[in-house]
């Protein structure tokens, strides 16, 4: 629940999603769900030459199960807030 809420606060930010198949996609976070599926808009692939089939893809839905990393701008994160939330979650769980 914590990361779902966390990602909901990041909607509208530029993120780079790195997938388990090594594909990295940069785009604007449009939405996220309980499975941490991600919808990105205005997407471009980080290494375009390696993945030519993605050239014309502008929006995509990424299944949560295939995500390795979600890279965020360093100032896009309120670390203290996250810290508190994690502590609260740990206490409650």
């Amino acid at each position, binding site marked *: *629940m914590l990361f*779902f*809420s*966390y990602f*909901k*606060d990041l909607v509208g930010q530029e993120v780079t999603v790195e*997938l388990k*198949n090594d*594909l990295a*996609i940069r785009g604007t976070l*449009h*939405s*996220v*769900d*309980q*499975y941490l*599926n*991600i*919808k990105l808009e205005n*997407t471009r692939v980080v290494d375009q030459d390696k993945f*030519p*089939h*993605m*050239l*014309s*893809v*502008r*929006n*995509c*839905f*990424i*299944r949560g*199960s*295939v995500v390795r990393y979600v890279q965020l701008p360093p100032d896009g994160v*309120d670390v203290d*807030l996250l810290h508190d*939330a994690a502590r609260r979650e740990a206490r409650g769980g």
Partner: protein
Amino acid sequence: MSSWAGPEDIYLSTSLASYLDRKILVLLRDGRKLMGTLRSFDQFANAVLEGACERVIVGEQYCDIPLGLYVIRGENVVLIGHGERGASSKYDSRLRDRD
């Protein structure tokens, strides 16, 4: 500032509804690229693709293998992509079609 999930938010999902009846690209875990019209989906990202074809790309050349009506099991789906209109011409000019 932060909005913690209320009971109604738990059932929020990133919907594929906006892709319905559109031409989409589906990347599968085995590396295959399927293209077709999305006709149906569910919470597991299972999908029904009408007029599906597999796009095989080798270097600068590509070829489409027609497949017909496909039901894709969600666990194999990596990504479902949708492009803006006319964007495929940018793609086609990069790759050459081979029969």
